[in-house]
């Protein structure tokens, strides 16, 4: 592997030539803020928050997409960079509901984090906002369109599973939005409620509906565990409050696994003190289901029953 040496905020970094500036910065302990970047997703360079200044280059460049070169001198917090970041954040806040008090995402929201970091505030204006629209058709996911910052992460993560690819963009310009299939409700769409998209949404635009109102991140404890539904084990978290396990949420897919609803329900069933009624989707409708059906163990239970009665007969 070829290595290159560059300077980031005065620190020397020696990294593989295939690295981007953002990766190199991480290596030397410098965090560059980014909303649309994720190491597991294709680079889109959309949010423009990770802009940095490269000496000898008059333009600002996105550090998520710009490859390192030997001798490069990068500034990640120069006056020019900070000004641009504040502008990006201000434009996002200008088109975002001021709802942090009651938002389920508070405390974990990246927009909140960076707004705080760069001291950018909500302000009143009489210009346009995204229309208020929440899709409540799914028992597992809440889509709050007004909060979406169009980071593309949900679209890219859903796209990674070949037979899902549910999410796309609809419209363009200021009217751009994330759509389920051809802009259907979550219920009607082909969404399989795996919650991959929810795990990656940086704001409160896609939320785990079964978690809402139960606890927030600072309220109680969060314990990681691995799903036991199949041997791969996607990462989940159980959230507890006052000594009670109140909710389970998907954290990230396991190696080679896509995350799935069955796994999530199994995890709820096994971990929660008071699991809520499960729902499954049939013909584009969510219907209440028994735990046996939701966990797909009816056949097994039947067989066990039969074996039990046989045992009884034999006795």
């Amino acid at each position, binding site marked *: 592997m070829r290595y290159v040496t560059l300077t980031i905020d005065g620190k020397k970094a020696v990294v593989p030539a295939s690295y981007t500036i953002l990766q190199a910065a991480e290596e030397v302990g410098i965090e560059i803020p980014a909303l649309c970047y994720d190491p597991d997703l294709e680079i889109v360079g959309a949010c423009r928050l990770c802009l940095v200044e490269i000496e000898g280059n008059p333009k600002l460049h996105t550090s998520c997409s710009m490859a390192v070169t030997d001798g490069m001198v990068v500034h990640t917090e120069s006056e020019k960079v900070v*000004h641009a970041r504040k502008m990006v954040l201000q434009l996002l806040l200008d088109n975002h509901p001021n709802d942090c008090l009651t938002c389920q995402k508070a405390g974990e929201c990246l927009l909140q984090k960076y707004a705080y970091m760069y001291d950018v505030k909500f302000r009143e204006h009489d210009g*346009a906002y995204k229309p208020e629209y929440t899709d409540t058709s799914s028992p597992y996911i809440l889509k709050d369109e007004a909060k979406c910052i169009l980071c593309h992460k949900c679209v890219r993560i859903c796209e990674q599973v070949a037979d899902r690819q549910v999410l796309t963009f609809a419209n363009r310009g200021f009217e751009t939005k994330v759509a389920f299939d051809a802009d259907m409700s979550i219920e009607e769409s082909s969404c399989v409620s795996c919650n991959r998209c929810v795990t990656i949404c940086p704001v409160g635009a896609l939320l785990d509906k079964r978690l809402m109102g139960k606890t927030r991140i600072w309220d109680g404890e969060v314990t990681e565990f691995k799903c036991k539904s199949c041997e791969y084990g996607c990462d989940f978290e159980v959230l507890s409050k006052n000594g009670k396990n109140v909710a389970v949420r998907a954290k990230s897919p396991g190696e080679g696994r896509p995350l799935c609803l069955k796994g999530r329900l199994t995890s709820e069933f096994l971990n929660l003190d008071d699991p809520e009624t499960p729902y499954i989707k049939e013909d584009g409708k969510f219907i209440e289901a028994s735990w046996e059906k939701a966990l797909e163990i009816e056949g097994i239970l039947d067989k066990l029953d039969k074996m039990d009665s046989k045992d009884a007969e034999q006795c």
Partner: protein
Amino acid sequence: MKLIVGQGSCGIAAGASKAYKILEEEIKNSGANIKLGSTGCIGMCYLEPIVDFIDDDGKKTTFVKVDEEIAKQIVKDIVASKVDSNENVISDEDKEALAKQKRISLRNCGIIDPENIDEYIESGGYKAIERCIKEMTPEEVIEEVKVSGLRGRGGAGFPTWFKFNAARQSPGTEKYLVCNADEGDPGAFMDRSVLEGDPHALIEGMIIAGYAIGASEGIIYVRAEYPLAIKRLNIAMAQAEERGYLNKDLFGEGKFKFSLRIKAGAGAFVCGEETALLESLEGNRGTPRPKPPFPAQKGYWGKPTNINNVETFANVPFILANGGDAFAAVGTEDSKGTKVFALAGKIKKGGLVEVPMGMTIREIIFGIGGGIAEDKGFKAVQMGGPSGGCIPAEFLDIPVDYASITKTGAIMGSGGMVVMDETTCMVDMAKFFLDFTCKESCGKCTPCREGTKRMLEMLEKITEGKGEPGDIEKLEELGKFINSASLCGLGQTASNPVLTTIRYFRDEYEAHINDKKCPAKQCKALLTYTIDPEKCTGCTICARNCPVEAITGTLKEPHKINPDICIKCGKCYEVCRFGAVSVE
């Protein structure tokens, strides 16, 4: 003897097909031995439909504005051998406007029949590719293009040889060549003119470029709104294949074979941006990708790809047939050759003109374009479409070359020139262009998606008389930010119309904001209509015409407008015969 009808989209829109039919009938009826042919657009939109007559000695007479009657008359006059007496022979002034041009990329447009490959070959076509294959290495071809100094005509003006070379040097054996025929700049139609009028020039240019970079497959991305262009391209491609220029080992030298296909793009303006175009070609939503990597490194399906504009390609056969020096002899030090401009707006002779680089803006607008319509005063010219900027009267004498235009804050762009007269409100003009960009933003990146909307809202407020002190500074700050932080060229140039109008017409912005006045009297919300009691004769015509009964007064007494009711429709101003109504 031959009659040739200009049948580009513009000619057809003006009635060229009808003229063709009449000529056909009349020739048949007269029994005269006159051949009838078609050609593309010569660029003089204001004179369409245009018909050329070539007599047996090869002398050409051009007839303009040929309607049904004139068409009949033309045949009569030919039969009677008195064509010169025809009233619709082109004027000397218009002939001169044509003579001032220098046609390289449009060399055959309006002259040869685009649907007949023999006419292209007779005019020297497919000689350049023959020379390349038989006598030159790809490196030598690139060197010739370097000598020519040709720069991309699609907008950014990047040296063409450099792009050819980057794609050639890029590792990999599978490479692609793409022609950008998306032409989304409103008002620009130079690419359409080449596609419709001389498709073989593009095809030959692409084969040469394919040979130079080592790409055996080419794709023409043409906007679906250009059906005639697509039709003629298809015809031309079939003929080129028949003659062995496409899909066959060229000239049997065992060196190179090139295939070409068309992709009709129904995309938006942003699909003309090269990386968005590639996404669209791959069947995805047409949104730009971050650069680097550039298409030369990672293009179509991740393979090295070179993308050039139609006009760029159309220049290439000329360069390879006549030598790079011949091309470089035209133009200026930094901008070689010619450029096609689409003259539009408040100009007398709108249309396409191809001129040597370095000609002054004044010469183009007044010398060739005939000056300002209705002889009004010149105010500014918008160059580069919605990505460009306005250039005020004080720069009329600068030469049109890349560096000089860029210095003004405008861009050469694809060659749009929208002329504005003294009645144009520059704030309103900036709003018009920003509205376009804002709607065409793909929505991918934050600065462009959110920022252009906020700028547009501010301009709307200003033109509605709700502007506040500080708005100009806010526009400048936001505009510069959007230009510096956006992902693609659309956002990176979106603010130019606003920034240049602020730079040159700041007083107009100030008048709107501070005095709530529109100096050009275009922004309705800022106008006040009043009746001068000295001039008013009390004829009552204004009161009777006012749609909202804002005017009161009795017969033979001065009338009065109630500003609270007036909706500023301008009706009273129009109907008053005594000039008593004034607008401020």
